[in-house]
C-alpha cells in the first residue's frame, strides 16, 4: 500500500434532499482502485452502488443529491470540491464512464463517428480529418465490423451490443486511466455480454486501465474482478478479494445472496431466498440495516449497527458482529 492508488474514495456519504426528508443513499463508503485492477461493486437495486459511481464521476443529480461527507482522490489529487470546469477536464479524459443503456447515452441525431470524433476535437483540439481517422481507429479497436463504412451511421442503426461497443470506443478514445462501467452488459444477451466483457478485459490488459465495475450479477464479478465490495442499504457490508468473498463470504447478506443465485449446474427443489425486502431509505432501520432479514441476527443487531468494517482475516472486511461465525460456518 505504498504506491498512490489510482482512485481512492474515503468515507463517502451522499444525501438526497427530497420533499419527504433527507435520504442517505450512500454512507461511509471507502475503497481504492489500482492501475490495471478491476474492482466490482455488487449490490441490488437501491443499495447505493450506482450513486457511488456517479459521485466518483461527479455526475450526481444535484440537487437533490449532495455529497455530504468524504473525499475522492484521483492519483492523489482531490476531486471533491473541484470547480465544474476542472472536473470536465477530468471526466472523459482521465475517467470514462459507460452505462447500461447505450441508446439513451448516445446522441440520436449525430452519427456515431462524429460523436467519437467530438471527443478528440473537444479535448485534444484535433482537426476534423485527424479526429475522423482517430475515431475510425478506435472503432476498429472495439471490433466494429466495417468501421470506416459505419462511421456515418446513427445509433439506432446499430444493435444493442454494437451500441455498447460504440460507447466503449468513445470512452477509451482518450485513454482514460479509470473506466467506470455501470451495469455495462445488463441489457445485453448473454452471448453478446460475453463478448463485451472479453473486450473490456482485453482493453484493460493493453492499457493498464483501472476498471470500476458496478453490477448486480455475481457471475460477472467472478469473471472480471480482482476485488469486490458488497453494498446493502447504502453501506459497504463486505469487501475483499473477489475470489475469496465468493468462495467464502463473511457477511450474512453476501452468504444469503450467493445461495439465492440459481445454479446452472444443479437443480434444487427450492431456491433459498432472502425473506423480506430491502429497507425503505425513508425509514432507516435501527441497528444493522440487514438484521430483519438476517438468519444469524441476535438482539444486539437491532440495537447497534454492525461494527465498522472489521478485519475479519487478512484482506477481508465485513460489517457484521458475527462475521467470524459466518466465515467459519461456510468452511464446513
Amino acid at each position, binding site marked *: 500500500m505504498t504506491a498512490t492508488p489510482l482512485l481512492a474514495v474515503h468515507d463517502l456519504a451522499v444525501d438526497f434532499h427530497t420533499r419527504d426528508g433527507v435520504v442517505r443513499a450512500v454512507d461511509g463508503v471507502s475503497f481504492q482502485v489500482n492501475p490495471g485492477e478491476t474492482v466490482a461493486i455488487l449490490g441490488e437495486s437501491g443499495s447505493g452502488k450506482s450513486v457511488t459511481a456517479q459521485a466518483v464521476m461527479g455526475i450526481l443529480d444535484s440537487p437533490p443529491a449532495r455529497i455530504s461527507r468524504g473525499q475522492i482522490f484521483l492519483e492523489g489529487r482531490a476531486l471533491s470540491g473541484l470547480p465544474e470546469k476542472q472536473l470536465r477536464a477530468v471526466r472523459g479524459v482521465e475517467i470514462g464512464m459507460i452505462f447500461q443503456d447505450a441508446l439513451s447515452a448516445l446522441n440520436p441525431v449525430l452519427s456515431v463517428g462524429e460523436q467519437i470524433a467530438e471527443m478528440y476535437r473537444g479535448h485534444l483540439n484535433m482537426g476534423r480529418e485527424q479526429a475522423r481517422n482517430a475515431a475510425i481507429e478506435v472503432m476498429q479497436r472495439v471490433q466494429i465490423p466495417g468501421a470506416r463504412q459505419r462511421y456515418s451511421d446513427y445509433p439506432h442503426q446499430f444493435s444493442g451490443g454494437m451500441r455498447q461497443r460504440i460507447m466503449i470506443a468513445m470512452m477509451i478514445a482518450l485513454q482514460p486511466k479509470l473506466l467506470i462501467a455501470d451495469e455495462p452488459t445488463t441489457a445485453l444477451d448473454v452471448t453478446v455480454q460475453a463478448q463485451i466483457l472479453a473486450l473490456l478485459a482485453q482493453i484493460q490488459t493493453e492499457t493498464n486501465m483501472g476498471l470500476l465495475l458496478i453490477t448486480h450479477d455475481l457471475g460477472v464479478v467472478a469473471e472480471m474482478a480482482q476485488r469486490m465490495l458488497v453494498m446493502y442499504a447504502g453501506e459497504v457490508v463486505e469487501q475483499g478479494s473477489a475470489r475469496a468473498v465468493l468462495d467464502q463470504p463473511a457477511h450474512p447478506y453476501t452468504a444469503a*445472496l450467493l445461495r439465492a*443465485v440459481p445454479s446452472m449446474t444443479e437443480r434444487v427443489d427450492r431456491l*433459498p431466498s*432472502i425473506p423480506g425486502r430491502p429497507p425503505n431509505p425513508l425509514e432507516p432501520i435501527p441497528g444493522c440495516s440487514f438484521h430483519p432479514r438476517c438468519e444469524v441476527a441476535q438482539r444486539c443487531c437491532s440495537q447497534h449497527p454492525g461494527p465498522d468494517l472489521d478485519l475479519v482475516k487478512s484482506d477481508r472486511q465485513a460489517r457484521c458482529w458475527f462475521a467470524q461465525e459466518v466465515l467459519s460456518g461456510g468452511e464446513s
Partner: protein
Amino acid sequence: MAKVNDVVLVADAVSLEYPLTRGIIRRKQIGAVRAVAGVSLQLRRGETLALVGESGSGKSTLARLLIGLQTPTSGSIEVAGDNLAQLSSGQLRAKRRNIQLILQDPYTSLNPRMTLKAIIGEPFQIHRDRLPLGKSRTEAVAELMATVGLNPELINRYPHEFSGGQRQRIGIARALALRPNIIIADEPVSALDVSIQAQIINLMLDLRDSHQLSYVFVSHDLAVVRQIADRIAVMYQGRIVEAGPAAAIYASPQHPYTLQLLAAVPSRDRDRSQQPGQPQTVVPDDPSSPEGCSFRSRCGKATDLCGAVRPELSDTGAGHEVACHFPGSDSAAAPDQDPAP
C-alpha cells in the same frame, strides 16, 4: 409418450409474418419478416415448458400467439382440443379464462390508478361466473392476495405503494383469479433483484403444485430456467432449434447455438480476467438469409451444406430434438475462427 388428454396446449406449424411494404400511397409488399416460423410444440398438464433464446428470437411473440393476443399467419393453436382460430368471439372469451398471462415489468403492467381490489378483481367483471360461489368480489380478492403472499389488509392500496417483488405477486394474483390451468409467463423474474427473484420462483413452483398449473415460461436466463423447467425449447430467429427434457439439454446440448448460449453465461467458477484476449465472434448485425441454416454465420461447424439446406428438427432419442446437420456436444462450443463474411 404422453397420453392425448394430458396435452393442454398444442401449437402446430405456427408462423407469424409481418409484411414489409414500400411506398406511402401505393403500398407494395416487398417481402416479409418471419417473427415465428413453423413452430410446433405441446404443453402437457402440470409441466413447465421454457422458451429460451436471445432478444429477437421470437420467444415473446410465440407466447403472444399461444395466448391468442395475436393470430398466426399460418398454422394452428389448440387449447384443450379447440382450435383458437375457429372459435367465435364468445367461445374464445370463455376459452381465454383458462390461459392467463404474467408479464415482465411489474411497474408498467399494473394500472397506477386502480387499487389492488380493482386490479385483481377486474377479471371477475368479465367472467362473473368464475367468482367462487357465495363469495363477494372483495372476499375473492383477499383470498387471492393471501395465496400469493400479500397481506389482504392492503386491498385498498395502489401499486406504487409496493416493491417490485410485491407487484409481481399482484400480477400473479390477477392471473390466478379465473382459476386458469395454463399460465404464460413472459420473463416474470427478469426485472427483479436476485433475493426477490428466488421468492417469486418458489411461489410459482408452489402454485404449480397447489393449483395444477401448466406453465409456458419465457426467459433469457438459463440459470432460472434450470430451476423451473421440465422441458425446454431453444429458439433462434423464429424457429425452434433444439427442444427436449431440461435435464438432457443441460447435460448434453446438441445444437451449436445452445452450446454457445450455455457457455456464455457468466459463471461464479470462471475467471475471465485470467484469460485475456479470448476469441470472439463478432456477428454482423443482420445475418438473416432466406435459405439454409439461419445460425450458420455464427457457427463454428458450418459447411456448404448448412448454406444450402435448412436442417429440420429431428429426434435424437428420448424426445430430445435438434435442428442441425452436425449436432453434438463436442468441439464447437466457441468457434474461434473469423466470423463469416
